[in-house]
Each structure stands twice: as C-alpha cells, then as structure tokens.
C-alpha cells in the first residue's frame, strides 16, 4: 500500500507509472477493491480525457470510463501483462468502448467534432498525464505526418469513423484509406520510438 502511494499521487511527472501496475493488477485479481481504486487514481484521468475527446460528451465519457473499469474488475484476467502495459491495455479498451458509444449516439455530433480537430490535442492543453514534453512530442510527430495520413488517423481514432466511412468522407478508395492508416502509424511509431522502447511499454 505505502510503496505505491507516492507514485499514484504524482502521475504528472512525465513518466507513466507502470513499474508496479502488475502488483495492483494482481490485487484486483484476488478481489481487492482498494487496488482498483489505486489504478483509477493512476489512469482514471487519462481514460476520462480520451473518452471525452472521442465522445465529445462528458456524461457519455463518464459512462465509458465506468464501464471500462468495471469490465476490468469483473474479468481482470482479460489484461495479459505479457502482451503489454496496463495503461496501453486500458486505453485500448477505453478507445474501443468510446467508439462504440459514439456510434450509438447521434452521428451528427461526432461528425463536427472529428473533422474540426485533425491534430492530436488542442494547443495549450494541459497534458499532465504524460507530461507536457511527451505530449508535445506526440503532437509534433502527428503534425509531421503527411496531411492525408494524419486526417485518416484522426477521423478513425478520435472520430470513431470506420475506414469505409473515412473513405466516403474523404472521397478516396477504401484501399487507400487502409494504406494511409497503416503507413501513418508506422511513421508515428518510428518517430516516437524513444518513448515506446522503455517507459511507454512497461
């Protein structure tokens, strides 16, 4: 308990606190609600911020975050530490559920939101979760992509559009959309390699 408190309280140091997530996860597996609370303290803000970005609706975002943490509570073994970090797994699930939620909601709303903001995050935003420097790097890397790759990725990732919808929206063939997303992500990964090799992954 005590040894994780300091990390849990300072998630804004720039480095995602991933070192002893596995210990907290193990405690959730054996039914310890306090451990779930500590994981929420670490990642709740990041989860909520991503859900809010995708849903463009505070209430919907809140529902998504609650659903995600409860999914993890109910079946903690769905997270497999051998496949990656807890934060990556959690954000993947947040993204998935948020996209599902937004697809159920009015399509009109997300259409406006996604199209307006092709870059990763608004400038001047508070990027405390990853640290301003890291968030800046991510933003720069996105900004460095060819516009059509950035647009395709933003529409899918933040807008929750399917590739087929992105093709229709941007007026390019589906195969080109698939290719743009693939290549864009490869490039991003290349640019952000230093963040991924150590702290990001585990």
């Amino acid at each position, binding site marked *: 308990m005590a040894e994780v408190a300091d990390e849990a309280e300072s998630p804004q140091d720039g480095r995602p606190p991933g070192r002893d997530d596995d210990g907290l996860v193990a405690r959730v597996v054996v039914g310890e609600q306090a451990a779930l609370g500590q994981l929420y303290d670490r990642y709740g803000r990041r989860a909520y911020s991503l859900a809010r970005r995708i849903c463009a609706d505070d209430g919907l975002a809140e529902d998504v975050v609650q659903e995600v943490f409860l999914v993890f509570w109910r079946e903690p073994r769905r997270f497999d530490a051998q496949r990656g970090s807890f934060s990556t797994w959690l954000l993947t699930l947040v993204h998935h559920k948020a996209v599902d939620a937004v697809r159920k909601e009015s399509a009109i709303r997300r259409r406006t939101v996604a199209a307006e903001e092709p870059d990763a995050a608004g400038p001047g935003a508070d990027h405390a979760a990853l640290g301003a420097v890291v968030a800046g790097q991510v933003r720069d890397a996105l900004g460095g992509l060819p516009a059509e790759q950035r647009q395709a990725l933003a529409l899918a990732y933040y807008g929750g559009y*399917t*590739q087929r919808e992105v093709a229709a929206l941007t007026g390019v063939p589906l195969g080109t959309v698939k290719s743009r997303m693939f290549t864009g992500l490869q490039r991003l990964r290349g640019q952000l390699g230093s963040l991924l090799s150590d702290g990001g992954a585990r």
Partner: protein
Amino acid sequence: MTPAHSRDCPMAEQSVGWVLHALEPEEEFEVEGHLVGCPVCRTIVRETEETLGLLGSSAEQAEPPPGLRARILGAAATTPQVQPPVPPAPPVPVVVEPPRRPAAPSAGSRRSPWTRVGVLVAAAVAVAAIAGLGVVNAQLRTQRDAEAARAQSVVAMVQQMSRPGAQHAFLASAASGQTIAAVVSDGGVRTVLPVDLPANGEDRVYVLWGLPGTGSPAPLGTFDVAGGAASAVSVGSTSGGAGFAQYAISIEPGRVAPATPTDVVASGRAEI
C-alpha cells in the same frame, strides 16, 4: 495502386485497422481468426496498441467528475468477479515472438479448406451427438423437450462454426483420442458442446481453457455436464482480443477454476 511498404503479412493493414476498431464487423471476425495463427500480425497489433496508447494519452486532459471514483468502486462492490480469486499465473518466461519473416505467408491459402473440413466434421459430430441422444432419451420420455432443445443448440453451433471469423476446435480425449467435445468461439462468445463428456457431479466442475501461442493457459469459464443429454453450453465470454491456438477442458475439484489446469481430459487445436 498502393505501394507496398514494409508489410510482412498480407493482413498487416487489416490488423492495424482492427486495433483502430475501424473495420466492418465481418472484417473484424476475419482478422481475429487470422491473429490466432499469425505472430507477425500479433506483433503489429501489440505495437499499434502502444503507439495509439500514446496518442490517447496526449488528448487534452480533463478532470473526471469528482463522484466517478466512488461510483466505480460502489458498482464494483456489488459486481461479482467472473474469475475466481486465485493468485495470478506465475510470470512464465515468455518467448517473445520476434517478427519472424515467413518465407511465404499463406494466410489465405489455408483458410477456406479448413473451414470446409471443419464444418463437415462438425456436422458429423452433431449427427453422432443427436443420434446418441435418441438412445438416452428413449428411456426417459420426459426429456423430449431437452432433446429438441439440444438438437437445436447443436445445429446452431454447427451453423456458427461456418461463420466467417468463428473459431472452433474439436477436443479429443486424452485417454482414447476420440472427439468428446467441440468448442466454438465467435465474437468472444464461447460455446462448448459436450459430445461425450461424463457427468461431473456436484463436487467437481469442468473448466474450459484457452491456450495462446505463447504463455500460460487461461481459464475461460466453468461448466457442468449432467447425466445423459447435455446441450451446448455457453462458457464465459470476452469481447475483443484474439482467439486461442488451442482449447482444452479439464476437470477440477470444487466449483471454481484454478490458475492452472489439474486434470486435462480433452484438448484440440483451434481452427478458423
């Protein structure tokens, strides 16, 4: 058309689309089936998840509503955990699959024949199961309804096997080598058809296990087989994620799944 970049597998682009949750449902099923047998694409998935995790983390940060934490913990307090409270699987030294370059990726060539064979075998298993059932039920007329229900569930299961993306496995008895159960995993929902599993009784339970390509077996859920005619049973469900390379059934003392299987009674390779 589109220039081929460093795509180590023809399904690489689709795997990225899958992580983005941007595919059509039928494509999602197809990728999930493919991932089971393709370490190259599993690596792509893992890497893409990491990269997108950074994107997700860099979204404009906002403070969640103050009551959310309490609501989540409150809901957790009344939500039973699906998995029994057992210690987590010991950290097995994982063989981290290096993205090995297959000489000739042949994802497409393998698929359709297997599906066809699988469905044929499934149909044979189903017929045997239904026929066997007739004998059992001749003794007990009151089980007619159960028979109808079971026949229906078997037919539904066989139909499910032929669905694109559905994964299935025929589990052979460790002792006799005969097929004694079948498993279908479709969109995260797993169904077991106990063709010839003995009744487990009250103090023991059957556990379905999924064996990933690398790593430890994961308990997927428990189920019971009553004497005589057992219907196809739904065993646990998970949404998303890849299927497994193999499935197995063990019989366990007590009513909950242990961390690792004790007595494996049947196992088989997953087919798409």
